[in-house]
């Protein structure tokens, strides 16, 4: 019932305990101990299994294949301590405290999701560990980055992503390519609420009208009535601030009922490889949160390595950002050249890093240069916005008709 200790984790912890005295004697440690608690079970497991776990495993594998992290002259392999947080914040907190106080790991990698990242943030702050929150989206990110200077918020804000969509659509409306009617449905939970809250004022400012605006509870299994009501006003733009199971159900219901507005946007899960696998050619023109620069060599290389390592593709939103956060951690540690967490935090705050998502330099502990809106075009989920970001594609509009199944 308590956090499970994996065999590898137990071995790692045991080895670390044995190695600890030697570390102090020599200067260069025999291993860099990295610990994390991640949702292997519970409601978060679906997201963690797609976005976080494959990247953690691939990073450790790649670093150790190269001999380890470079500390000064030496290459020091990574040793992993891993727990299951069961998607429960109490367990996450307990595991983080254990990693810091009992396992005495050198660095802690963050859990999956906004809520659990918020739960561990104070602990990592008190203990002085860098906290690279790569799967947390919250409107409070700017404030949190100031309050906990060890924390780095890599996935932007819900309202930023919401406003981003309007930024894509507003010029299209001015050109007369789409009308001003919008139907909005949103899941009544953290990110869904923030995303919708970001959109409503932005839509209003840009002169759009909301013909339908309703939220539904998490875990709603039948989207047919909601979609029927949303489609009734024949809106030009349909937006769903949804979670993965709803994203699939909404797309499915829209497809079979032939509801094909000029703009069709769904939330979390649109960027998942599962979405492409499920809907194939029908994904063409669907917009969603996230996106990648698929023309970049770095991303293609990452994609190939991810498939080789995990046996499946990464998602097109937080996956590459998660891996980039690990590359940043690695580069910061190697620049500092020793296990000095305060110096690593300083380096993360001020340094520039070369990553799979391109060069990264954080602004006030936030990653601000990231894709807010993407669109499926020819089987790839391209970033559309920021409009002037390297690799940004123009939107396909109107969305083509759903192909027959």
């Amino acid at each position, binding site marked *: 019932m308590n956090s499970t200790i994996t065999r590898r984790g137990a071995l790692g912890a045991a080895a670390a305990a044995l190695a600890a005295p030697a570390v102090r004697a020599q200067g260069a440690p025999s291993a860099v101990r990295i610990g994390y608690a991640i*949702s*292997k*079970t*519970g*409601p978060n*497991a*679906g997201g*963690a*299994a*797609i976005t976080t*776990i494959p990247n953690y495993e691939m990073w450790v594998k790649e670093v150790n294949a190269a001999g380890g992290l470079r500390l000064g002259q030496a290459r020091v392999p990574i040793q992993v301590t891993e727990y299951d947080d069961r*998607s429960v914040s109490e367990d996450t907190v307990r595991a983080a405290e254990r990693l810091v106080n009992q396992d005495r790991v050198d660095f802690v990698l963050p859990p999956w999701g906004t809520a659990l990242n918020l739960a561990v943030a104070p602990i990592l702050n008190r203990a002085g560990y860098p906290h690279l929150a790569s799967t947390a989206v919250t409107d409070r990110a700017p404030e949190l980055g100031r309050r906990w200077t060890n924390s780095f918020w890599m996935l932007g804000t819900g309202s930023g992503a919401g406003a981003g969509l309007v930024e894509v659509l507003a010029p299209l409306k001015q050109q007369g390519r789409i009308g001003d009617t919008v139907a909005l*449905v949103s899941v*009544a939970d953290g990110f869904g609420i923030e995303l919708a809250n970001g959109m409503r004022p932005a839509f209003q400012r840009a002169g759009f009208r909301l013909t339908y605006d*309703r*939220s*539904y*509870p998490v*875990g*709603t*299994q*039948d989207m*047919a*009535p*909601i979609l*029927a*009501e949303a489609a009734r006003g024949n809106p030009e733009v349909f937006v769903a601030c949804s979670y*993965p*199971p709803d994203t*699939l*159900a909404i797309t*499915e*219901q829209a*497809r*079979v*009922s*032939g509801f094909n507005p000029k703009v069709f946007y769904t939330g979390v*899960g649109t960027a*998942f490889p*599962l979405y492409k696998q*499920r*809907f194939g050619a029908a994904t063409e023109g669907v917009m969603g949160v996230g996106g990648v620069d698929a023309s970049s060599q770095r991303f293609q290389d990452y994609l190939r390595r991810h498939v080789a390592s995990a046996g*499946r593709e990464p998602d097109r939103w937080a996956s590459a950002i998660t891996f980039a956060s690990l590359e940043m951690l690695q580069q910061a540690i190697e620049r500092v050249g020793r296990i000095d967490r305060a110096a690593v935090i300083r380096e993360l705050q001020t340094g520039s890093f070369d990553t799979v998502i391109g060069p990264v330099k954080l602004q006030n502990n936030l990653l601000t240069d990231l894709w807010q809106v993407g669109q499926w075009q020819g089987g790839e989920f391209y970033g559309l916005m920021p409009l002037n970001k390297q690799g940004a594609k123009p939107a396909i509009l109107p969305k083509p008709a759903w192909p027959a*199944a």
Partner: protein
Amino acid sequence: MEAAAATIVTGFVLGGMYALVAIGLTLQYGVARIMNLAYGEFVVAAAFAALWLFTSLGVSPLLGLVLVMPLAFLANWALYRVFLTPLVRRAPDAGALETDSILATFGLLFVVQGVMLAIFGGAYQSYSYLSVPVQVLGATITANRLVALAFAAVIGGGLWFLLAHTRMGTAVRAVAVNPAAAPLVGIDMARTAALAFAVGGAVVAAGGVLVSTFLTFNAAMGMVFTMKALVVVIMGGVGNLMGCLVAGLLLGLTETLVASFVDPGLTLAATYGLFLLVLILRPAGLFGVAAR
């Protein structure tokens, strides 16, 4: 008018799915007296079996039913005989058995979930089967949901026939109604209970296979199904097949009507409001018999 008809059809289809998922539990809980908390895990396990058969071997889920149901029957029979019979033997009364079975199946939940996580990982799964639109009274419904509704009707009707018109079925009902008196008229309790549990397991598996054609699922989602099934079973009256169908349909209709004409945000509130109302007015459930 047409919109109302479409809404009612959609509600019936959703309700049929709820009933389908709950029929197995009413047999396991009502007759075998096993409060199976791992119930939803078995739904998800069957969904994974269907996914695997379909994506790796190209076996259609409907054909998969023919394979999965007997397997589930055997597995549940064995489970009852090996794992649960000792609990039944040592329990002094039905209340104690309920408590023991809750604890035991709570453990089982983690075992089944762990096995699925180890084999399939935690990621969301979904596949496309029979997802073609069908027009029914102005509502556009996917064929896979209609198929699930049809199977719910066939399985429910078939079970009702077996229970009402066969000797074995009468014995099962006798055990459900009065487990203390059933052995007095020569009913083999152990065998009847095992049979009910296994048939329940086979129906669960059918439910899992059918919902997998239109729901996105992952290895950690079992609890969702357990909760829904529990609400339906308790609302309908424990061990009562007809109650299960009526309660499932009622819930589906309520949710759809509320989502269409009031606010989708209130569907959960409506579900539990209805549940509460039934419990207050008829504590034993819609078709339940008041406690002895």
